């Protein structure tokens, strides 16, 4: 294959696609106008906050800060306005609750496995007598518990909560999702057990044996059923931007997972290309869209203000859909794969800057003048930081795809830090925020200890900052030492030790924050804590509970 031809055609295709978007927007073909951004509000609701995670004083302060930014006082809600949403919440509550409970369990499991792996990297003789606790396995258990436990359970739970609200109709067929979720979790337990005893398909991100993957495929398909059934019942004319992301993510993932796990199909170098097509797309076309959809819903919802530019969100969506799918080859720069494949992926990695900038500008403009709201809303604080980390990790990822940068960072801990910036700083933080919003709505109970939410936020932020900064510096130095032929290889290993230790310190703080978060959830379920007067379900604040 002619490299120049591929490079040129990829570039031409990308630019043509971009021009087509600009043209179509000028013509208003894809544009529903600002009305599209308003579908998440009931008539007259704009300017009114919705923040179930805030304590009463915080909520009042949040409303005052939004009123001040708008220069107008929000009208009081009426029961009728919110009835549709209350029904949607009530219909999805049992299913969402189930998924979030699973998410909490996997969060704790994954945190424990991750911290163990981190410690073992600088204490190699610690717990070395059991095979399942050796680094190669506990690290893999950590990755799979995050990738197939915490992230999808939280993401799907959030989607299950948001979509009925966006379709203006109760969730239909929730029982399919419960069965699907049960199958999925059974598959994951079996998969982690298989990894622990040394049964693995051997590919990063695809370790779970394909025989067990069948359970995950069946479970995933069942989870999709109620979403399709609900979509068919929708009462709204317009599909909001969050629906595009969530809808496509739920169709993309099964294709990725099926193609990647067909036994006997892939082999040799081709399998490596497939491996990173999957590995990067499960991030880019599954977790990322689920998290972006959450931002597009919760951020405007909390501050009662529609997304600033609906056109930009269109550009962000289609840009992500087009460019992100093709970036996986940048994991094989310098490897024995066809050159055109790597070049194509580098080009598309750089093009990813476009949708990322579109998203960033859009969110910044939406929040502009409302930054004070970050102080009062726990949901917004997590989601705001998460959104910023999306920008940071994406730009960082684009730069890492450049050959000159990649030569230094590729085989090092720098990549590990980058991966956590995306999946933790961005996706997990956004999911934290969304869960703080959702739980009061589906359980009818408020978070009992507001200070625990603040402690969770600061512990996680501080811990992750230490984690990221330390590991990035260590990874850089490691890469530079490896490139210097005058230095023995062992130098590149021993110089990382203090940075690996700092990662364990940061990781321990992150784990502590997760334990606090999980304990808070348990306290809420058990009805502990001071009695709170403000009702947690929507609509309840203006009258009787629905």
């Amino acid at each position: 294959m002619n490299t120049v031809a591929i490079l040129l055609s990829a570039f031409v295709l990308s630019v043509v696609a971009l021009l087509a978007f600009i043209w179509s927007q000028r013509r208003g073909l894809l544009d529903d106008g600002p009305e599209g951004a308003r579908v998440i509000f009931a008539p007259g609701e704009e300017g009114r906050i919705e923040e179930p995670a805030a304590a009463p004083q915080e909520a009042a302060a949040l409303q005052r800060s939004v009123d001040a930014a708008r220069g107008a006082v929000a009208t009081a809600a009426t029961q009728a306005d919110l009835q549709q949403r209350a029904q949607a919440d009530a219909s999805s509550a049992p299913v969402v609750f189930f998924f979030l409970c699973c998410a909490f369990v996997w969060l704790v499991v994954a945190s424990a496995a991750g911290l163990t792996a981190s410690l073992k990297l600088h204490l190699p003789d610690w717990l070395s007598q059991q095979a399942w606790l050796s680094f190669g396995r506990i690290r893999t258990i950590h990755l799979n518990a995050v990738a197939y436990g915490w992230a999808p359970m939280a993401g799907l739970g959030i989607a299950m909560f948001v979509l009925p609200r966006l379709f203006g109709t109760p969730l239909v067929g929730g029982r399919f999702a419960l069965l699907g979720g049960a199958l999925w979790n059974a598959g994951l337990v079996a998969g982690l057990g298989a990894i622990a005893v040394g049964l693995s398909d051997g590919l990063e991100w695809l370790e779970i044996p394909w025989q067990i993957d069948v359970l995950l495929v069946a479970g995933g398909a069942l989870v999709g059923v109620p979403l399709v059934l609900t979509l068919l019942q929708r009462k709204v004319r317009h599909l909001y931007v969050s629906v595009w992301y969530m809808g496509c993510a739920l169709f993309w993932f099964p294709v990725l997972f099926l193609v990647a796990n067909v036994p006997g199909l892939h082999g040799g170098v081709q399998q490596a290309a497939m491996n990173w097509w999957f590995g990067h797309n499960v991030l880019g076309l599954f977790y990322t869209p689920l998290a972006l959809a959450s931002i597009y819903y919760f951020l405007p919802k909390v501050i009662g203000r529609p997304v600033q530019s609906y056109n930009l969100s269109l550009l962000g969506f289609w840009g992500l859909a087009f460019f992100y799918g093709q970036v996986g080859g940048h994991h094989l720069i310098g490897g024995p794969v066809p050159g055109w494949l790597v070049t194509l992926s580098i080009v598309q990695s750089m093009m990813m800057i476009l949708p990322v900038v579109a998203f960033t500008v859009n969110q910044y403009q939406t929040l502009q003048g409302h930054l004070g709201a970050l102080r009062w809303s726990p949901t917004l604080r997590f989601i705001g930081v998460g959104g910023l980390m999306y920008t940071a990790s994406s730009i960082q990822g684009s730069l890492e795809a450049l050959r000159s940068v990649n030569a230094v960072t590729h085989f090092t801990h720098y990549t590990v830090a980058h991966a956590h910036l995306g999946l933790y700083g961005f996706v997990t933080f956004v999911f934290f925020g969304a869960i703080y919003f959702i739980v009061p709505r589906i359980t009818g109970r408020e978070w009992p200890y507001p200070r625990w939410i603040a402690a969770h936020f600061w512990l996680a932020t501080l811990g992750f900052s230490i984690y990221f900064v330390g590991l990035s510096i260590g990874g850089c130095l490691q890469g530079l030492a490896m490139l210097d032929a005058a230095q023995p290889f062992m130098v590149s290993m021993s110089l990382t030790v203090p940075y690996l230790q700092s990662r364990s310190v940061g990781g321990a703080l992150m784990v502590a924050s997760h334990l606090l978060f999980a304990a808070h959830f348990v306290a809420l379920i058990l009805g502990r804590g001071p009695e709170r007067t403000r009702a947690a379900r929507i609509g309840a604040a203006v009258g009787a509970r629905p």
Partner: protein
Amino acid sequence: MKDEIKLIAGGMVMLALATSALVVLPYLQVRQVEPTPGLRPYTAAELRGRATYIAHGCVYCHSQQPRAANFAPDLQRGWGRASVAGDYAHDTPHLLGTMRTGPDLFNIGARQPSDQWHLGHLYQPRAYVPGSLMPAYPFMFDAKDKADAGDVVVSLPPGYKPLGKIVVATPEALDLVAYLKALDRSFAALPAKAAPASAPAASTVAR
């Protein structure tokens, strides 16, 4: 974008493009690549060892893809010439790896051909490489009072043997070492007439 069919169709077309580029085209181009001349299939013991390599997740710290000289000094480190697609003709699943917490192992068999070194290093890496961060794999070995017939006794540097016992390799450890020693691609990547002048000196022991 009112129509969900259009949305999903658009999304799937985008994914189809990506899949064509990163899965289908490589499948057509390099799935059935000819093995590099000189590459032999793995033996049964080596394949069992490869399964052990996978089971213990060695790939998370060791790559198997030496890079070209314009990219990294892998050749100078004795890791071998840059690998080509044909070198992986018998490798399913692939084990190219993405980390070099430890060194590249694509030619470890060429630069470290000693069974005893490998066995002792697996039992306790720090016995041979001070400061190594590699996990020890003591569970791949038996500590015994005396060796039985057919046992492979691991000779360890002083201070690393359990008190009053001898260390014997399990079949799992022996297979893994067989696989590691099979990792030797010190033959030329191209047919002899087109071979580059800088043919790899992969037998040099360097770390």
